[in-house]
């Protein structure tokens, strides 16, 4: 039984304008206070409670900086909540930032293995999938070459083929519907649909409202890190569209909130 349970989850973190601290900040900052750029506190998620059960297909919508991707990463366990509790039952498969994280010097074949191992596969289970992943990516002989020589489109193809070759229990998807060139996109969307059908439970983030409505049976609308509304796709998406239209005409549709824009 796959299940996600979030209780009063908040996430706040400090963001420094440049990442990390350096010697100059501490020495110079101590003498000339005004030059010292204080780290800013960002409240990315604010008191979110959420229950997702087996069979549900949840879509997260909201404007830029509303906390959609952060929420997804928190469910994945990449971010730990600063307050509240997170419980996830079932093996998590996450599809985000998939075009990143290739070992540049390693070949396509080797990278398929690294990725699969990271997703919890064993050498034996990877052996069974290797050919299927290679075929779907249509990269052929390029798989013998180091990934360093791949174009960005080729990387996305490879990443997508690996990421969707799994049998997911809890599937987390962030904006990967647009993968590769036109021909590959159609194929990728079919594959995505099949993967989602296999998953026990799915949570996705997308700006494509039509696709979201098509793939999800429940929608959560986030605003400034808070839940604004939860309900069926037929209920929430028209309301969200209406709000966006009004916000655009009154100039209120700025990305993020006052603090969130610092992120």
């Amino acid at each position, binding site marked *: 039984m796959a299940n996600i349970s979030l209780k009063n989850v908040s996430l706040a*973190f*400090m*963001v*420094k304008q440049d*990442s*990390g*601290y*350096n*010697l100059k900040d501490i020495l110079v900052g101590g003498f000339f206070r005004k030059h010292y750029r204080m780290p800013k506190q960002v409240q990315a998620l604010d008191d979110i409670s959420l229950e997702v059960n087996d069979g549900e297909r949840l879509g997260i919508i909201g404007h830029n900086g509303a906390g959609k991707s952060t929420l997804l*990463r928190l469910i*994945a*366990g*990449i*971010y*730990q909540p600063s307050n509240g509790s997170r419980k996830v039952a079932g093996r998590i498969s*996450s599809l*985000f*930032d*998939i075009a*990143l*994280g*290739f*070992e540049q*010097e*390693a070949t396509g074949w*080797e990278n398929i*293995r*690294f990725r699969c*191992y*990271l*997703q*919890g*596969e*064993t*050498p034996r289970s990877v052996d069974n999938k290797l050919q299927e992943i290679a075929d779907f990516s249509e990269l052929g002989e390029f798989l013998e070459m180091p990934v360093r020589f791949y174009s960005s489109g080729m990387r996305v193809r490879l990443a997508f083929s690996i990421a969707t070759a799994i049998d997911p229990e809890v599937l987390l998807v962030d904006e990967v519907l647009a993968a590769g060139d036109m021909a590959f996109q159609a194929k990728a969307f079919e594959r995505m649909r099949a993967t989602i059908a296999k998953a026990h439970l799915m949570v996705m983030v997308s700006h494509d409202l039509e696709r979201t409505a098509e793939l999800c049976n429940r929608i959560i609308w986030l605003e400034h890190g808070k839940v604004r509304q939860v309900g069926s796709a037929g209920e929430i998406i028209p309301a969200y569209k209406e709000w966006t239209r009004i916000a655009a005409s009154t100039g209120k549709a700025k990305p993020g909130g006052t603090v969130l824009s610092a992120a």
Partner: protein
Amino acid sequence: MTDYLNEIWRTRFFWMSLVRMDLRAKYRGSALGMGWSLIQPIAMTTVFCGVSATLFHQEIASFAPYVMTGLTLWSFFSQCTSMGCYIFHQAEAYIRQHPAPMAIYPIRLMLANTFHLLIALSLAIALSIWGTGFPGILPLLSLVPSLLLIMIMGWSISCLLGILNVYFRDVKHITEVALQILMYLTPIWYPEQLLREKGLSWLVNANPIVPFLTLVRTPLLTHEVPSVEMYGLATIIAGGFFLLAALNLRQRESRLIFFL
């Protein structure tokens, strides 16, 4: 705690394949490949031995294995130190995609360096057999626990510096300078006695790397098992660094990603 170790074990295929890749990538496209791992310590030992034999009138047969063990251990520790600063930055894309235990990234670096250490060390053992004769089974076996301590020390150093450098970007520059200085202050290619005779014993005693050097050199050069005190001292140092690294990791692991 057990959960954490289980997670490390569960992701073993991932980090082991990365170690293998690091080793292969290092020599990819070079004609001699792994041969370079042998040539480098040989060349360095030859040069330092030549210089020392002339300057300090050392006897080559016993001094060559002394220099070679020094050089191999030094290059292990200095690699763990200088590359340790980058481990979490290098793994950023993985960290952002998958919540794997962070301890595996220092393991990756430590294991790749251990491999080179083993190659060079077997060469040093061969050299010492040639120079001073077979040390005996027990002294040779005493290298196994020593090596374990050295690996723990290597992991701890890279983990600590990796965390530090995420928060404080000057660390990598500081360690570069510190390593340069430490290289001259450590009895790697000159006899330890030289410092002690000059009244600089404290410099040898304060150096955390020296006990590990002694652990490896004693069986090869004097054909004796290192003293219990020496093992104790090395265990305290490695254990101390390990605790410091593990506690830091435990406390900061979940927040590290916000500073990458």
